[in-house]
């Protein structure tokens, strides 16, 4: 599976080239175009390992309940993937490790990678902002997307990232959801709400813009539903 990123960073699209019988698993709705020899199947979870519980967890995560599997038939095929929001993408190669990806930043991965929704406990639900994580485990390529630019932060010790700016992080990092200011009142008045305090050693990938902030900004100008 080859992944080529074009028109970075604002209008990034990913061209995924698949050899015969190779399978790419992608977030629902991500396909913008593909060659004709690609077979698409939609499942609630990884093929053969379907479990409705996992699917429900995906739904809770704000992810679609369904994921699509693109399989090249007899010849090499290509799939173009895009996102709804403007921004960049990044290809990560996992080597028998786990990457935790923020729900809306997951775009696609190789079939060999296990997709699971890690249960982070109530601390995530309470955060108000939809902080849910997709755990990608195994070896192979992973494609993640961001709203705006994407940049890594190497954490050794402790670091604080606003929940809306997290794209992905190594599982070697542990985190707690906490308040940005000294008191809860100040945190909310300051507009920073909740932040993730990472500890340990690893990398956090951040996005330059917070989709919820942009959405909230647009919301005021939209007709109520």
């Amino acid at each position, binding site marked *: 599976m080859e992944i080529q990123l074009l028109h970075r960073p604002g209008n*990034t*699209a990913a061209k995924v080239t698949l050899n015969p019988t190779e399978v790419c698993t992608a*977030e629902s709705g991500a396909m913008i175009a593909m060659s004709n020899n690609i077979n698409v199947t939609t499942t609630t979870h990884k093929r053969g390992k379907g479990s409705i519980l996992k699917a429900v967890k995906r739904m809770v995560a704000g992810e679609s309940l369904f994921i699509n599997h693109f399989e090249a038939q007899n010849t090499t095929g290509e799939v173009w993937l*895009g*996102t709804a929001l403007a921004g960049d993408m990044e290809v990560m190669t996992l080597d028998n490790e786990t990457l935790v990806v923020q729900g809306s930043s997951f775009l696609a991965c190789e079939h060999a990678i296990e997709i699971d929704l890690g249960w982070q406990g109530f601390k995530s639900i309470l955060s108000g902002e939809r902080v849910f994580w997709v755990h990608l485990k195994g070896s192979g390529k992973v494609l993640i997307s961001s709203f705006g630019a994407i940049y890594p932060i190497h954490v050794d010790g402790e670091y604080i990232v606003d929940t809306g700016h997290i794209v992905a992080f190594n599982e070697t990092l542990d985190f707690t959801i906490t308040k940005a200011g000294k008191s809860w009142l100040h945190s909310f008045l300051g507009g920073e709400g909740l932040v993730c305090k990472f500890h340990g050693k690893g990398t956090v990938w951040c996005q330059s813009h917070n989709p919820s902030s942009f959405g909230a900004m647009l919301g005021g100008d939209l007709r109520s539903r």
Partner: protein
Amino acid sequence: MQDNQYHVTLTGKIADATNIEHASAQFARLFKTTPEVAMQTLQKGPVTIKRNVDQATAIKIRNVLDKLGIGCRILTADEADAEARAATQNLSVNNNTSVKKDSSSPISDTFESPTDHPGLQFKIEGKPDYSFVTVQLPANQTLKVEASAMATMDTHIEMKTKLKGGLGRFVTGESIFINEFTAAHGPGEIGIAPGAPGDMMHVYLNDEVLYLQNSAFVASAMSVNIETKWQGFTKGFFSGENLFLIRASGKGDLWFNSYGAIIEIDVQDNYVVDTGNIVAFTEHLDYKISKVGGYKSLFFSGEGFVCRFSGKGKVWIQTRGVDAFAWWAHAYRPARSSG
């Protein structure tokens, strides 16, 4: 600003070329010279005939010349300097035939010289994220421009609103107007910026046909015929997008834009494109709307219907979809308060 900073420049265009003798006789009388000199001056092309006059005088001269059918423009001293510099640069480029355009890029980002294609000179800037085009319009030529897309233009360019495409564009929700911009008193430039941020492409149609997704049209030469084409109920309604395509045909320049970047795909036999990501495609491709995968995929894949192209040709796709973004933004709409 000082008042006497205006130059009057002849464009070298004469409305009634057959009657050049009369025009030069009049011109000679006005500027106190011989008809022979006047005729030479008129045929020479862009030449400044009055320097450093005030605005009122410049306008008076233009009005007189207009009556004689002699094309002219009023420039400020700064503009004139800039144009003179540009002209010498153009000249040096034209003389140096070894200067070659980057042929790997299908899109030009500099003013194209007419030798590259027989169309108008233009410049696309802000590529690829915020593309807009500036077209150099020769005197008395007209450009069709998508309604409300005009951003900047010379003051002597005149706009006319035309009802093009008929009722079809009412149904699709697309504004039905294409405005026509004419460079009335000599050449001028017009800056055109489409509504969505993204890329822009230029093609020169040579008696060819190109189909555009409804909102992709930016501008075209007058010689290009723009019409809407009903896609039929199955192709239109099921696609969930537009019921009409724009059919551009004839000979001349055509500009179209995208939301997001444009990717050009060479279709050899078959290709599948999400209906929301089609920008344009060539005539000899056949297309039909179908689902991806099985019925489960139809409802749950998030892809809905796709467009299957078959045949040989080119499809331009965009990396973002307006509908996908609108759907995303929908979640942030405020809830109606009860009562």
